[in-house]
Structures are given as C-alpha cells and as structure tokens.
C-alpha cells in the first residue's frame, strides 16, 4: 500500500515563547481535497511551510508520499504549491519566470511552460513583466508554476485571498478541475464558502491546534444536533427534558428551550411531552451554519462535537 500524500505527526513549531503550531496530526489521502481551515494567525501557513520543507519543525514529522521534505528536496517530487502569495521576479516576464522555475525543476518541466500558461489563461500576457501583474494574475501564475511540476499533490495557501469575486470563482473552478484530474489538494483557507464548495475533508485549526478533523458532512451533522422547543408549559417541558435519557445541554434561549440529542432521543422526548399533557408548539433543529460552527470552534473556548464519524475533537486550551 502506497504512503498517503501527506502524513503529519505531532508537528510543533515554537518561536521562543510562542507556539505557532502545537501538535498537529493529519493525514491527507490520495484524491482528497482537504481544507485546512483557521482564522489568521492560527498556524496554517507555518504548517504549510513545514510541509514544504521551508522551515524545520521544533518537534514532530512530515511525510509527503512517505518522504521527509527536510532530508532532501527530492521529497518534493510530485509536490507543488505556494505559501502566502506566490512570489516571482518582478523584472522578468511571466514566461521567463516560468522558464526559470522549469529549469530549476528539470525533468522536462520546460516542455510544460506553454501548457501551464494556457491552463491559467495567461498565454496572452506571457511576455509582460510580472511586476505589472495584478494580484489575481500572480495567483494564477503561482498555479502555473505549480503545474510545471505536474504534481500529484498540490499545497495551496489561501489561493483566493485578495481576489475579486470573479477571480475567486475562476480560482475555485481551476482547483476543482485540478482535483477532478486526480490531483490531491491541501487547501489552506479562512474562506468557508471556498472550503465548503471544494473540500471533502477539513481540519480546523485554532491557536496552532486542530480542534476538528473530519468530513464537512460530519461537521454539518454536528451543527444540526441542537434543537429548539416551545410548548404550552415550558417549565414542565424543561423538567421532562432534563429527565429524558439522551437529551443533553438543556438551556433556555430567547424564550425557547434548547437542547442537544440524537434523533431517536428527540422522538422519545416528544412522546414523553405528549404523555405529560405538554403540547408542542415548536420542535425544530437549530439551523447552525458552517460559519457559526467555525466561529464556535475557533473562538472562545471551542465546543465539543459529537458525530457518527471518529473525529479529532478537542476543547482547545
């Protein structure tokens, strides 16, 4: 069985007193479009730098297809990407920049320059100096530079940040097409819509630690596991809720009883309410958006999620 594209174990990066990345564990499987979510300063870029061998971890290990990027640059064979904004020589043209990258890649990468430029629709601007390029064009050129390596794994650090809506849409389409083409993608982002649209799995990072790891679907299920209840006798209803097995976290918010529980437990609760002659005005799952959940995970003390899938869930300290 071949090694997974990315395998990170106990990754730590400290800068003096500051711990930028704190024990990150993640595995990205072949074919994943993996979202690496977190607010600014959560440690996403530092993690990506360690994955690409640009900075050494204080502790832990990174393996890309089973190889250590800190031992030899050959570990990056089949791997491409960029951290923060892709950087180029501003006094060289787009083509010259890509030719330089291709020369540094070797292995016939020079033959992919035209393909890469065409893929990101920069063929017509190939002779223009990169110094005059917009942010969006540089982002696209960054993807082109990655494509020169014909990668099997693409690591992209907030590729749509700073782009206008059309640019963001184009970037997402491009990443989607690359993923459909069989590429494994690790996408660092703080844009939830982007992650929701593109990624099948996510890790949510908070202050350098992963507070959620799993599928978007499981995350959404976790988000919907809370219910709102209104009855003819809320005092009595609240007592029944507290006594009902499988019903947890009972509280009152804005005149409603709020609780969490599995579907079966909620069904039993409704039966118990009716049997106690408490009529139900409203019993509805709480609509919690991915954004709400993201904020609850990355701000304050975080929340503990229950879900049917094995999740790495921590109450961040």
């Amino acid at each position: 069985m071949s090694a997974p594209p990315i395998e990170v174990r106990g990754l730590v990066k400290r800068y003096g007193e500051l711990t930028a990345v704190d024990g990150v564990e993640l595995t990205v499987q072949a074919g994943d479009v993996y979202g690496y979510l977190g607010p600014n300063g959560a440690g996403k870029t530092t993690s990506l730098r360690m994955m690409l061998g640009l900075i050494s971890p204080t502790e832990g290990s990174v393996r890309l297809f089973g190889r250590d990027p800190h031992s030899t640059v050959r570990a990056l064979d089949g791997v491409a990407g960029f951290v923060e904004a892709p950087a180029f020589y501003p006094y060289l043209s787009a083509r010259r920049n890509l030719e330089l990258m291709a020369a540094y890649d070797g292995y016939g990468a020079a033959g992919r320059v035209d393909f890469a430029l065409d893929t990101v629709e920069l063929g017509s601007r190939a002779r223009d100096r990169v110094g005059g390029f917009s942010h969006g064009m540089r982002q696209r050129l960054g993807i082109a530079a990655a494509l020169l390596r014909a990668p099997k794994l693409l690591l992209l650090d907030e590729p749509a940040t700073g782009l206008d809506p059309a640019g963001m849409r184009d970037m997402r389409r491009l990443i989607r097409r690359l993923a459909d083409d069989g590429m494994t993608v690790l996408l660092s982002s703080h844009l939830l819509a982007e992650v929701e649209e593109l990624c099948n799995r996510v890790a949510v990072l908070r202050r350098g630690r992963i507070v959620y790891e799993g599928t978007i679907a499981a995350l959404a299920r976790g988000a919907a596991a809370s219910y709102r209840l209104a009855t003819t006798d809320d005092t009595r209803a609240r007592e029944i809720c507290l006594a009902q097995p499988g019903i947890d976290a009972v509280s009152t918010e804005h005149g409603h009883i709020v609780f969490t529980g599995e579907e079966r437990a909620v069904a039993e609760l409704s039966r118990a309410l009716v049997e106690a002659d408490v009529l139900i005005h409203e019993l509805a799952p709480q609509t919690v958006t991915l954004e709400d959940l993201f904020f609850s995970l990355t701000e304050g003390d975080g929340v503990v999620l229950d879900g049917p899938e094995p999740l790495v869930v921590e109450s961040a300290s």
Partner: protein
Amino acid sequence: MTALAAPARPAGTDATGRAPGVWAVYRWELVKLRYQKRTYLGLAASVLAPLLLVLAISLRSGAGHGDAFAFANYLTRSGLVVPLVILLFGAIWMFPLIVALVAGDIFASEDHNGTLKTVLTRSLERQQIFAGKMLVAATYAVFAIMLSGTVGVIAGSLQSGFNSLQSLSGTIVSAPRGLELVYASLVVYLIPTAAIVAIGLMLSTLTRNSAAAVVGTLMISLLIQLIGILPGMSGAQPYLLSTQFNAWQGLLRTPTDWVPIIRALWVCALYGIPALLVAFLVFMRRDVAGG
C-alpha cells in the same frame, strides 16, 4: 482554460528528463543579472573610471601641464599605465562597492522579492542554489575588473599610445610584455576581490537586506583600510585585506616579487573562507519564514 491533460510527469522516480543542477542556477542567475539595474551601475562604474582618468590626462596634457607633475608624466608615457592606476585607486572603495552590488544583493534580494521560498520548493538542493549564486557573484567580479582593465588599456593606448612600460624597479618592459603584466595584475587583483565577494555573500545571507549587505561590505572594506593607517598598526599591515589589493605590484618588479602575491593568497583565504562558510551554513540552515 484548456483541458488539464497535462503532459506526463517525468519528475521523480519515473523521470525521463535531466535533473537540474548548479549550471541551471548559474545560467539563470546570469539571466536575472541582465535584467537588473544594479548590474549596469557597477559595470558603468568599471567603464567610466578609466575613461574619466584618460579624459583628465587629456585635459591636463592639453593645458600644457603634462610635464609639470611626475605622476602625470608617467601616465602620458604609456596607455598601459591607465588600468594599473585604476587598480591602485579602485581598491579604496570603487571595486569593493562594484562587487558588493551583486554579492551583497544576490541572496538578500530573494528575501526582498519573497522568491526564496519559490526556488527552494523546486527540485534543487540548497547547496546547489548556493553554489550557483556564489559562482555568479564571482563571475560578475571577474567581468567587472577585466572590463575596467580592458577599457583602461584601450582608452589609455588611444590617448597615450601603446608604448613600453616602466616597471616599479625602473626597468623598461616592452608594450606586449607590459600588456601581459597588466592582465596578470588584474588576475592577482582578483584574489582580494574574491574575499570581498565572500564577505558580501555572508552579509547578504545574514542581513537578508540588500542595502545593508552592500553598504556593510563597503564599510568592512573601508574599516580594514582604516585599521591599516592607525598608529601602531604597522605590524598588522601585511595581514590586512586592504594590503592584498597591492599584491599585483610584485609583478611589476624586476625580478618578480612573489612574496606579496603568495601572502595575498593565504591572507585572503583567511578572510574569504570563513565568510563563505558562514554564508553557506546560514543559507543551509535558515528557516524561510518571511517574504
């Protein structure tokens, strides 16, 4: 956008193309130099210095002061003297500054542009990138000094003639032999220049700031000269880097005085090799966290 039927990846274990190496870095660093203004600033100084000297000789001769000053008289006897005078005075700050323009910038500019992270995630080992950049900084220094010397020979010969040269021992050497000695002197001059390049590379990796590295290299060069003129420091004079810029004068003595040239070799190695080692280790071990 085009279909993503990428040409088959030949990289890695299933590679069909050639692996990149130091030559790729060297070649592309030269290409990058061609597009940067600082490259031409240094080369312009290398060309202008001998031209201005020849112009000054021409004006002084035209004003009838040609024989009034022994030095000017010496200059007007043979055009071959022009490049040697440039070597003599260029050591103070001109050549250190010219070579520092590239050596001090070559790593620091990658930090400034944020391109270091780009090149370090390609298929080249750090030591290959270091070697390529070091060779380019050295190439630029060689080119600048040889260019200055050649311009000096041509301009000087046009002004004062391609005549025989009086050696520092007072003997007369023929013009062809004098030309050989001029180029041999340029080669010897490259020995301390290489040490300056190494210091420039060290400051480029340490400071990660182009201006600081260029100015710092010049400051170190000037500081070493300053030490040489301090009272009580005459004993250190033979071991100062600045003194080695005069080693070429041994070639212009009869018989050739090899002592300053051999000393220049090991003294400059003492300055250059540690600086180069520091540059290498810093570059190899550094975290690329910014830019």
